[in-house]
């Protein structure tokens, strides 16, 4: 006789905690929270098996608003907290919520090492290109020349590009979405949740108080078809309101071409998210609006690789298989001993 237990079907509201959400009205974070709550029930996981870990910053308040297990840790360290948690409890689904300052500035080192270890975590980086919680200083993703409270004459340091960093660390899953593109965001979060290994998702998120319209070009209804490019695995890179523009490879460099006039879809770069080599994904991550390219959204890369959390437990099992279950008596008496009577 088999005993079947059915999981209760959860609704988005079941994932809402009893805490008031305290982001500024109009903040892009609301949309990400809403899509997360909408997406999680589709995974069929019990709520108690989901953990949200965050660092410090506006985005990092996220765990307080989810009725799951969670920890609002310290600035930049969420990937490390999550690594310890996931290593001990690989059965849990662990999310890391971070921002551009938290993840790429003070926590850059942890992000890099978490990704290269391929710990089975889902990292969502809310990129608003500004320090919001400290009220408007420039961030590591702020563009050159950006005037903020701490850069009255303009930022003079070259910005980091989150996906280039992730791909440089050979992330096994890399994606980008936009806070206002809710259908796309929900699908992207779902893809990240389904990936085994570190899933890194950058979300273009608007800070309407300190850096409003930073992603205007990518969200504006009029322009977004020309300024973004939705990636589809196995499909050519086509974009534009009239779907008449594409990306072609010229040597090692991408270029924008118009379809027709002798150029067909077959001449275009085809997206292969499963390519073991990360070079093309890296090239995509370098396509920037300011250089006249559409910025790709969707899944850049999705490949399989050994996961740290699973390997660390495998080693414990392997050691037990080879040496037997640890026995204190045997440990204490290993090596040379002597009797005193």
């Amino acid at each position: 006789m088999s005993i079947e237990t059915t999981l209760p079907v959860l609704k988005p509201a079941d994932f809402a905690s009893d805490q008031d959400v305290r982001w500024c009205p109009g903040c892009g974070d609301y949309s990400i929270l809403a899509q997360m709550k909408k997406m999680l029930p589709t995974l069929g996981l019990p709520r108690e098996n989901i953990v949200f870990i965050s660092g410090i910053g506006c985005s990092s308040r996220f765990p307080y608003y989810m009725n799951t297990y969670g920890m609002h840790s310290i600035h930049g360290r969420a990937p490390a907290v999550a690594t310890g948690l996931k290593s001990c409890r690989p059965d849990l689904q662990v999310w890391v919520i971070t921002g551009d300052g938290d993840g790429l500035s003070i926590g850059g080192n942890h992000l890099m090492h978490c990704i290269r270890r391929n710990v089975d975590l889902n990292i969502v980086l809310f990129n608003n290109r500004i320090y919001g919680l400290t009220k408007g200083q420039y961030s590591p993703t702020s563009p050159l020349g950006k005037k903020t409270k701490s850069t009255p004459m303009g930022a003079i340091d070259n910005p980091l590009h989150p996906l280039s960093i992730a791909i440089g660390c050979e992330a096994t899953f890399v994606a980008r979405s936009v806070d206002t593109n809710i259908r796309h965001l929900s699908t992207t979060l779902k893809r990240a949740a389904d990936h085994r290994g570190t899933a890194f998702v950058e979300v273009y998120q608007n800070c309407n108080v300190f850096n409003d319209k930073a992603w205007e070009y990518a969200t504006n209804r009029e322009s977004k078809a020309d300024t973004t490019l939705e990636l589809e695995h196995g499909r050519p890179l086509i974009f534009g309101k009239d779907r008449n523009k594409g990306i072609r490879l010229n040597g090692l460099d991408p270029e924008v071409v118009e379809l027709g006039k002798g150029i067909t879809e077959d001449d275009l770069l085809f997206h292969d998210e499963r390519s073991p080599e990360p070079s093309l994904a890296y090239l995509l991550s370098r396509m920037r609006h300011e250089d006249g390219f559409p910025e790709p959204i969707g899944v850049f890369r999705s490949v399989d690789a050994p996961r740290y959390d699973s390997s660390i437990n495998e080693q414990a099992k392997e050691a037990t298989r080879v040496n037997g279950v640890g026995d204190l008596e045997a440990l204490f008496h290993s090596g040379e001993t002597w009797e005193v009577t």
Partner: protein
Amino acid sequence: MANSTVSKSVSNLLEATVRFCGDSGDGMQLAGTQFTNTSALIGNDVATFPDFPAEIRAPRGTKAGVSGFQIHFSSNEIYTPGDTVDALVAMNPAALATNLADLRDGGVLLVNKDSFEKKGLEQAGYQSNPLEDGSLKKYKIHSVEMTKLTRLAVQDCSLSQKEADRCRNFFAMGLVFWLYDRPLEPTLRFIEQKFGAKVPQVAQANSLVLKKGFHYGETVEAISTQYHVDAAQLPPGTYRNIMGNVALAWGLITAAQKSERRLFLGAYPITPASTILEELARHKNFDVLTFQAEDEIAAMTATIGASFAGAMGVTASSGPGIALKGEGMGLAVITELPMVVINVQRGGPSTGLPTKTEQADLLQAMFGRNGECPMPIVAARSPGDCFDVAQEAWRLAVRYMTPVLLLTDGYVANGSEPWRIPEVAEIPKIPVEHPAPLNDGDLYQPYQRNERLSRPWAVPGTPTLEHRLGGLEKQDITGNVSYDPVNHEHMCRLRAKKVANIADDIPLQDLDGPDTGEVLVLSWGGPYGACATAVHQAQAAGKKVSHCHLRYLNPFPKNLGQILQRFGKVLVPELNLGQLDLMIRSRFMIDTVGLHKIQGKPFAVAEILAKIEELA
């Protein structure tokens, strides 16, 4: 063994101290370790002091590259590696120059004559050859052509000259083994285990050279006396020799087993704590997970994640690493998760003296975090004591839901002593409770406290107990974020009271000596041995002196104040500029006498004794 052709006298000693010193590449640590293990196996009490430079291989022959290993072995119970040395083995002029001051007058000096050539003498700063200029005549000097004799011994082993020279330490060992009447068999077994299978010719060469050194002692006429130290009368039981960091790692494993937890160690390599990581990594079959993190902060915060997951979270480092963990420890304090933070102290500030010992992180342990951030502190006093203190730290951590700081130091960590192997069944269990899922309609309150003021440890994966922890101040009972000023003060006081409550849970402070007297020696950590020995000697000389050694630094045992009041003077010897001293003065409002040493070296018994004599 060849029959001795020379008649030798045997002199019985109660105890002796030997130091091997040479270039960092000369294998002196190995020689010292083998001598120690052999002495322990034949029943002596032993205490050791390895002393090595921060550089892995400083330029050959220089004073900066000298590495040493001191062993004190005795037929009585001993607590220190010895103040002065009875026999010094110096493999080169630099080793002689840097170590001779510790050799007692009339002591035995064994040198490798072959290394006392022009360049070596110059590097050591000698104007003339001390072996020839009469400057060493107050010692029993044996100048032996160790390089030449070693090469001769291995000429049939098909080794290169460089490989042959690497066996020299075994010649020195063999000779000292003969001098102190120690058997070769344990070392021969060690050689076979270490090299036998992999490089049989090296195993053969080392064995030959070891025996050659021993035979040299037996046969050469110039060495006329052999020394003998009887077995010590230690309490009955099965013993082994153990290093501090190994005892600490085993104590952690034991604590994990006795609390039925997985053990998670987050660590970043740092001297002198790295061997804890290495030792634990060897025992993954005890369900031990070792995470070599990208930095100290990740080591700390991954440990917090592990404790949140319900595991026994441990991180181990030294002062500079502990400084980096400060913010993480604050998170551990405010989230009230149990874990053990180990500081194997070394000389500071900054990088300081990485391989040398010091006790100057006590105030860092007390106060080195932002905000009102109390943590319990325990300290180990000797290598074997690390085993017990590790378990005690974890017991307090889970009972009070708090991170606990465990302090040792380079001297305790690298030193070794005989350790009576405990009966596993007699080691107490460490009970851990996790709340069970709630009934319908009930609400989990993550900051609801029990009579000790500790909160429940609900682990992810438990239905109905979903909750959020974090670094923002939490409302009492509910654990919701709270900026309420009165709540903040309340929570700060609660956290402080919870740690203070530990005083109800630890043994009353004991004393070695009468309850009252002229001088109380108050010590903590590594100086235990030197203080105990000095106090025993002073007591034997009729001084009214007692010894109080603290394992618990925060909170103090409840009766400490009363003890202090019963003595005319309180002497506080520390390897710092007066940190416990400061805590005692401010807490108990008493005048104390500090004795401070910050030379990267442990106290000598004579230093403590001289101070006691000055006061009593």
